[in-house]
């Protein structure tokens, strides 16, 4: 009987550990303790901008192309090629741009944080910080969280732009079943500012979870250089699952009961 519950109990235990650790980081940010190290916050934000934004936009651009061609072929097959904008607008804004942003955040930023903080942990740099009277959680994790919260909304809004641009290229310039004006008429009709806000909330929830999980796995890495690699791989598993689950909950919450489309009553 003990064996049967050992695995789920292990999962629950590590989930509880992660939640406890994340609560500590969030408390550091919420209590404004992190502003002691505001310079470090800005430095982390800068690193994020310089090293990660282009890759994120690149992935979102490719998925925008994908949404575009699928939408164009699907709408051609049901006989309304002029309405490819509906598919593109919903596919981009509501679903795939947040998800792909989450994927790339997990891959680039999440694992990057684990690798960085993990190597600090195993080369005893975090212990050195604590000896000097600087809290490792505040200085390393809370600063990264606040830094990404400062920057990521703007990165995300720009990546929506990249996705829209790519869908336009695919539908209008590549497939060419619909004119540019006709495409944009439908495209803008089927979205409005609250949709952008909901999409932003979804993506930010993913981003915050990813940064927190990255900090946890890095901070608790053990077992030499090999341990850092294993922790990085493990953080990816958690992040992939949580990105999908957050995406599903967000869609259910924001669009589940109300399609928010300019049709019918």
């Amino acid at each position: 009987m003990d064996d049967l519950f050992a695995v789920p109990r292990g999962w629950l235990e590590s989930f509880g550990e992660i939640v406890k650790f994340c609560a500590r980081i969030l408390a550091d940010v919420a209590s404004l303790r992190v502003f002691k190290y505001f310079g470090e916050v800005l430095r982390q934000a800068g690193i994020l901008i310089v090293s990660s934004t282009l890759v994120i936009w690149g992935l979102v651009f490719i998925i925008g192309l994908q949404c575009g061609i699928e939408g164009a072929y699907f709408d051609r097959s049901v006989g309304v090629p002029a309405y490819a904008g509906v598919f593109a607008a919903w596919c981009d804004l509501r679903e795939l741009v947040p998800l792909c942003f989450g994927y790339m955040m997990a891959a680039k930023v999440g694992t990057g944080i684990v690798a960085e903080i993990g190597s600090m942990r195993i080369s005893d740099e975090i212990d050195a910080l604590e000896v000097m009277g600087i809290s490792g959680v505040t200085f390393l994790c809370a600063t990264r969280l606040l830094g990404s919260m400062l920057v990521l909304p703007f990165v995300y809004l720009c990546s929506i732009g990249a996705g829209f641009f790519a869908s336009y290229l695919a539908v209008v310039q590549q497939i060419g079943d619909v004119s540019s004006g006709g495409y944009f008429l439908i495209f803008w009709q089927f979205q409005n500012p609250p949709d952008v806000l909901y999409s932003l909330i979804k993506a930010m929830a993913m981003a915050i979870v990813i940064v927190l999980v990255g900090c946890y796995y890095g901070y608790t890495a053990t077992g030499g250089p090999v341990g850092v690699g294993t922790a990085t791989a493990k953080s990816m598993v958690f992040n992939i699952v949580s990105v999908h689950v957050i995406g599903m909950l967000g869609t259910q919450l924001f669009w589940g009961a109300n399609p928010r489309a300019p049709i019918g009553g």
Partner: protein
Amino acid sequence: MATTAVDRVFAPTRGVLQEAGEMMILTVRTIVSAVKPPYPYGAEFVSQFMFALRLCWFPLLVSTVAFGYEAPGLQAANFLVLFGALDRLGGFFVLASIREFAPFVDAIVLAGVAGTAITADLGARRIREELDALEVLGVDPIKNLVVPRFLALMLVTGLFDIYALLFGVFGGVLATLVNHQPLGPFWATFFSNASTTDLWGSVVKTTLFGAIIAVVCCYKGMTAKGGAEGVGRAVNEAVVIAFLAIFAFNYVFTQVLLATHPALTDIVK
């Protein structure tokens, strides 16, 4: 060392090109080494296959059900309910799940879960100089380590595509039930629109995704360097490159498949 502006612009580009070239070389060497006798990699192949299976089945299950329910399920159902045409959701799921979402969720999970584990494993062996020791003993690391992983990931990603597809469609079933609709019309439109071309396209695509993941992750693991941070850094780079490569390849493959098989885009009523 003084660097000119030209160097600073072209050094990263050259690095990227060099790395892409080295991955190509690794791919060719892996394929050649897989075909040429002897074949000592059977046991390692089975263990890698089981390893990927054990790691991925649960994350893949959660991810595909969530994705199927979320993107094609809820959003498309929302749209179709406006016209009272929810029975068409099944036909949409052929396009959404078989052609698009099952393959790429499958690839993302495999790259994020099994690929990272492979990079961490090989990177650890590189850092501990086990790979050098193997070479000194006259054991070819490509034949004994890369080939079994390459073949196992190809097979496992291809097979998991079917699994992802089943659970993706299950997400669609959930979305239909949430809208209080009977399942009969869903299955009717699903099966009248499903074609074997879609299915083999999907399986071939994911098998090639598996090859991409394996080559990128093995390459990054085998070239890990730089002490403590090295392995973590290698995993980070491997998963980023794998994601970009998967999505770029996905776009090209889908476009070619749709353009060369116009019958795929006919909707059967």
